[in-house]
C-alpha cells in the first residue's frame, strides 16, 4: 500500500486541467481556421461532415412538421447541435458502439442509419425497428447504436459497462456515450464515470452542454465552473471544446477514441453548444428564456460556420452547397412520403420482447387481449 499520508500536487493529476477549463476551437465563429490547429482531412471527409449536418437539419424540420400534424408523438429538436452529434459519431469506427441520448439525429445518420429507418421510428409504423416501445429514441443493432432510455443519463453506466466488457474480451471496441448537461447531475453520471476511471474503460463520454435542461440553465445545474472539470473527480482526462465547431468536435473525439483504443482509458468531452429550438415539441421556451438570447446564438449556428470554412478552403462552392440542400430536401421529402403511408404495427406488439419466451401470465393476458378485440368488434366499440 502506498503511504496514504503522502501529499499530492497538481502535477500528480493525470492530465492538464487547463484543457478542462478552456474552450478548444479549430475554426473561429466566422469559419476562419485558427493557425496550427487545422487537421489534414480529405475533402471528401469534410464534405461528408457537412452533408450529415445538412441531412440532420432537414430531417429535424420534417419530424417537427410531422409532430405538428399529429403523425409523430413527440420530438426533441436538434437544431443548432448538429456539430456535436455528427463530429463525435464520425470519430467512431464501424465496430464501435454508440450510446446516444434523444437529440442526436446527426449521430445516427453518421453511423449509417438511413432517414427511412429514423422516420419509421418517429412514425411508429410497421417497420419501426423498436416495435412501438417508446417515442423519441433511436437506435439500431445494425449500426451499433443502442437506443437511449428516456430517463436521462441512464445510458452512461451501460456505455461504461460495455467498454469494460470489450476490454475484458480483448476487443478493440470503443464505446461512446452522448448526454446532456442536465444528465451530469444524475447518479448515473457519477457511478458511470467512477467505474470508467477505476477500470480505465475504453469509453468516450460526451457532454452535450446546450445550456439548458428544459428550463434549467447550466449554471443552476451545478456550481462547478465547467462540466469538463468534473472529470477530475474520477481522474478522467477532460477537454472542453466549442461544440459548434465540428472540426474541434471531430478532432477531439478522434483523439479520445484513439486513447481509448490504445488502452489509455476514458476521456470526458464537454462540447459547448446551444439548443436553438424548444426542449421538445411539448415545451414553450418563451416561459423561461428571451428571444434575444436565441437570436444571439442563432448567429453561432454550426452549419453556416462550417459552410464558410468549406467555401473559404475551396472544398465546396456556393452553388454546390445549394445543390446539396436541394438534393437532400427532395430525397428526404420522398422518404417521408414513403414512410407516411406505411401501415401501423399490429396490436400484438404489446406482448413482444418482455422475456426471451412469454411467461404464462403473459400468455393468459394475450388471450384476454384477443377476447377484448373480438368484443370490441362485436359491439362496435372503440378501443377506449
Amino acid at each position: 500500500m502506498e503511504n496514504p499520508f503522502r501529499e499530492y500536487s497538481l502535477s500528480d493529476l493525470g492530465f492538464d486541467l487547463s484543457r478542462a477549463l478552456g474552450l478548444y476551437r479549430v475554426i473561429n465563429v466566422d469559419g476562419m481556421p485558427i493557425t496550427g490547429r487545422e487537421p489534414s482531412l480529405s475533402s471528401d471527409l469534410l464534405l461528408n461532415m457537412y452533408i450529415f449536418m445538412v441531412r440532420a437539419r432537414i430531417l429535424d424540420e420534417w419530424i417537427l412538421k410531422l409532430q405538428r400534424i399529429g403523425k409523430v408523438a413527440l420530438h426533441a429538436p436538434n437544431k443548432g447541435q448538429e456539430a456535436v452529434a455528427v463530429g463525435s459519431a464520425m470519430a467512431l469506427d464501424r465496430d464501435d458502439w454508440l450510446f446516444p441520448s434523444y437529440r442526436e439525429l446527426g449521430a445516427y445518420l453518421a453511423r449509417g442509419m438511413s432517414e427511412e429507418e429514423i422516420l419509421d421510428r418517429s412514425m411508429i409504423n410497421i417497420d419501426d425497428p423498436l416495435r412501438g416501445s417508446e417515442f423519441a429514441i433511436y437506435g439500431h443493432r445494425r449500426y451499433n447504436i443502442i437506443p437511449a432510455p428516456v430517463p436521462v443519463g441512464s445510458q452512461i453506466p451501460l456505455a461504461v459497462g460495455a467498454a469494460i466488457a470489450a476490454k475484458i474480451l480483448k476487443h478493440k471496441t470503443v464505446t461512446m456515450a452522448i448526454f446532456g448537461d442536465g444528465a451530469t447531475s444524475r447518479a448515473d453520471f457519477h457511478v458511470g464515470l467512477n467505474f470508467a476511471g477505476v477500470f480505465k474503460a475504453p469509453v468516450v463520454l460526451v457532454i452535450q452542454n446546450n445550456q439548458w435542461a428544459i428550463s434549467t440553465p447550466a449554471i443552476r445545474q451545478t456550481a462547478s465552473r465547467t462540466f469538463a472539470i468534473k472529470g477530475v473527480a474520477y481522474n478522467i482526462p477532460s477537454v472542453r471544446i466549442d461544440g459548434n465547431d465540428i472540426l474541434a468536435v471531430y478532432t477531439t473525439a478522434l483523439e479520445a477514441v484513439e486513447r481509448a483504443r490504445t488502452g489509455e482509458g476514458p476521456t470526458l468531452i464537454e462540447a459547448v453548444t446551444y439548443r436553438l429550438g424548444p426542449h421538445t415539441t411539448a415545451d414553450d421556451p418563451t416561459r423561461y428564456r428571451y428571444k434575444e438570447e436565441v437570436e444571439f446564438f442563432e448567429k453561432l449556428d454550426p452549419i453556416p460556420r462550417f459552410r464558410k470554412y468549406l467555401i473559404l478552403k475551396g472544398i465546396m462552392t456556393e452553388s454546390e452547397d445549394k445543390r446539396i440542400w436541394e438534393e437532400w430536401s427532395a430525397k428526404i421529402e420522398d422518404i417521408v412520403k414513403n414512410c407516411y403511408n406505411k401501415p401501423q404495427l399490429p396490436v400484438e406488439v404489446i406482448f413482444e420482447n418482455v422475456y426471451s419466451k412469454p411467461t404464462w401470465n403473459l400468455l393468459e393476458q394475450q388471450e384476454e387481449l384477443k377476447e377484448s378485440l373480438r368484443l370490441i368488434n362485436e359491439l362496435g366499440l372503440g378501443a377506449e
Partner: protein
Amino acid sequence: MPVMNMVQALNSALREEMRRDSRVVILGEDVGRRGGVFLVTEGLIDEFGPERVIDTPLTEAGIVGVATGMALYGLKPVAEIQFIDFIYEAFDQIFTNLSKLRRRTGGMYSAPVVIRGPCCGGVKGGMFHSQSNESYFIHTSGIIVLMPSRPYDAKGLIKSAIRGEDPVIFLEPKILYRAIKEDLPEEDYTVPIGKARVVKEGSDATIITWGAMVYKALEASKLVESRHGWDIEIIDLRTLHPFDKNAIVESLEKTGRLVIVHEAPKTLGLGAEIAAYIAENYIDLLKAPIARVTGYDVPYPLAHENHYLPNIARIYMGLSKVMKY
C-alpha cells in the same frame, strides 16, 4: 364558486397552503419560471420567490433526499417529480430514509415530505411518461399513497397530505389534468385520507377503481346497464394506502360481486391486495370469483396503449365474468 380543472385545483391548493404555512416549500425540476411541465406550479415563484419555489438540478435522488433533509429540519417540502416514471433514482432515499425515518430514529424524527407528480397513461406518453407504479410505494410501509380522480379531491387530498405528519406519494393522473372542470368551494376544505368515495351506487356488482379508470368504469357500467340491466356500484379508492377496506366491504355486502380495475400491471398491482384481503376475510360475501381488469404485465407500450389499458370492452368482460357466474 371558482370552476377549476385539476391543474388549477392543485395550483390553488399549493398557493393556499404556502400562504397558510411559511414552512411549505416546493422543489423540483422546472417548477419555477416554467411552472412545471404541466403548469401545476405556475406563478407560484412570482408570489413566493425562488427560496420557496426551488428549481433543482436534474436528479430525483437529490430532490427526494434533500427534501427529506428539509422536512427533518422542519420545513414542509412538496417535491415534484416531473413524471412519476422518473422516481426510481430516488427509491433508495425513499426506502432507506423517507419511509423509515420515524422508525429508524425511534420516533424522534420524521420527514413528512409530500412527493407529487403526474402518473398513469392514456396520453401517448410511451414507456416513461405513462407508468402507474403505486405498488412499489404501497408495499413499503411508512408511506401514504393518494391518487385523486377529480379536481375537488385533488385539492382536498393534497391539503390533507401537506398538513399531515407522514410522507405521502401523491399521484396525479395526467390525462385528467384538464379533462374535468368542477365548481370548487371558495372556503378552505380537506378530503380525509383513507376514505373512498362512492361514485355511483349500484346493487349487482362493485367496481373498485381509482384515477382515470373511474371514468372508464362509469362508461362500462352504462353499457352493461343498457345491454343487461346490471346495476353497478363504482367506488373511487382515492387513498391507495391505507385503502378504505370498510367501503369495499360495505359495498360487497350489498352486491357480492367484485371487479377491480386499475392501470398498473396486474401482477402485484393493488388489485392483488384487495382481492387477497377479501379472499382472506370476507370470502363469504362473494357470490362469484373476483375479477381484475388491469394493465398487462408488460412495460407500458407506446403503440396501442388503448389496448394495454383497461378499456370498456375489458371492463365489460370483467363484469360479465362476475355477473354470469
